[in-house]
């Protein structure tokens, strides 16, 4: 098994096929979308492939160290930041192909007009924890 992170972007991914912003969806469309995500996660628990999923606030702050005894420097949010992560789902699956299949299923969540959003999700493999002893 290998773990993959499915990343959903607010910004930074290519435009979705059904690219209507969420704030213009009807309440029913929003509810259907949320239900789809819940059912999807439930199915992954059932299939033994679910690890974790969280949504992130669009508001974030950049922070860095600023020397001994000084408070951290903060900055942002930067309007020009190209990439903004909206949330993630962590899955544990048998193969890379299975990870792609699940990401595609997630991307089919219904949006405006009840049609699949078909947004682009990013699939990133996690590095494993088990180092081999090469000889």
């Amino acid at each position: 098994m290998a773990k993959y992170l499915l990343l959903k972007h607010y910004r930074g991914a290519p435009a979705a096929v059904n690219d209507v912003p969420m704030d213009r969806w009807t309440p029913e469309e929003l509810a259907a979308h949320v239900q789809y995500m819940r059912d999807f996660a439930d199915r992954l628990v059932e299939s033994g492939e679910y690890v974790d999923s969280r949504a992130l606030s669009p508001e974030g702050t950049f922070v860095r160290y600023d020397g001994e005894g000084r408070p951290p420097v903060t900055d942002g949010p930067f309007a020009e930041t190209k990439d903004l992560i909206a949330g993630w789902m962590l899955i544990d699956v048998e193969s890379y192909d299975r990870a792609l299949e699940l990401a595609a299923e997630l991307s089919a969540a219904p949006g405006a007009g009840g049609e699949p959003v078909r947004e682009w999700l990013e699939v990133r493999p996690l590095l494993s924890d088990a180092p081999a002893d090469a000889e």
Partner: protein
Amino acid sequence: MDDSLLRILTPEVIGVLVRRGADFAGAEDAVQESLAEAVRVWPDDPPRDPKGWLITVAWRRFLDAARADASRRHREARVEEEPPPVPGPAVDDTLQLYFLCAHPSLTPASAVALTLRAVGGLTTRQIARAYLVPEATMAQRISRAKRIVSGVRFDRPGDLATVLRVLYLVFNEGYSGEVDLAAEAIRLTRRLAAMTRHEEVAGLLALMLLHHARRPARTAADGNLVPLAEQDRGLWDTRLIAEGVDILQAALARDRLGEFQAQAAIAALHADARTAEETDWVQIVEWYDELVRLTGSPVARLNRAVALGEADGPRAGLAALAELDPALPRHTAAAAYLHERAGDLVTAARLYAEAAGEAPNPAERDHLTRQAARLRERAG
């Protein structure tokens, strides 16, 4: 409470229940419940016959569940109150469980989870933690696996090769957190080796022992990976090495070579060298030839190329490497190493940095990055 006795008894008790007519999934659930009960009760009230105690409690749990199930379905319980007296040999039952849990119809991950629970006696929670997934996910993985094997006959001989693959997968997981999976894999393989005389079971056990013997030397105090050539061989566990070599020699003497024996032979040759310089690379290349013949594995070919680089010089190693698919895992790392041995530090540094970007785990990535940095410094 030391749970090792419970874990040894787990597969035996499941076997007894199945012999009495319980289905595997029901028996497995009932035995897990009896284990939890034992953990609660035994510290204050230790039983005189632990196995008998577990069988009694597990059988009662099984009957309760079967009755509840039957009444839910408005059907009559078909299970007898009094178990038929079929005391089968525990060894056969346990062996059958190994086969069932590693049944070829299961995916490797499902087989691993089921083996750890039904044969290893680990709880779902422990297995979930070892594999860093939520308990609910692991519980589903296990119950799906049980459903898949529910129709498999318990009394037929199974496929030993898949059992060995599953145990090797568990071993390679190493240890993260509370469960030492490598040690657990050794325990389960040891037990399997005591039940069968198959040469490859012995070969796998020897391989595990020889690798495990090097574990104390594999990681530096700062957590960094230490490659074989740089390991402090004084830290190797000589007792495990001696045991591994004995088991391997007995298996090889029976003259039925297999891939695990060949891999163990390579590990034994490394173990035999008091310093890295004393390594018998010519023999190691010969064993890799056997391994390639037995498996055709591209990974074996890659390792053979590196060994050839030591036996016949880096140019020979690079020539062998050039015949292999560059997309193979660790191909770039092997090329970097052989270029360094050949004295081409600039190329080696570039390849090490590239290999770091392709590394499958952080320990290797960091190691390869350090190699690149070291060579850049030397090459100036």
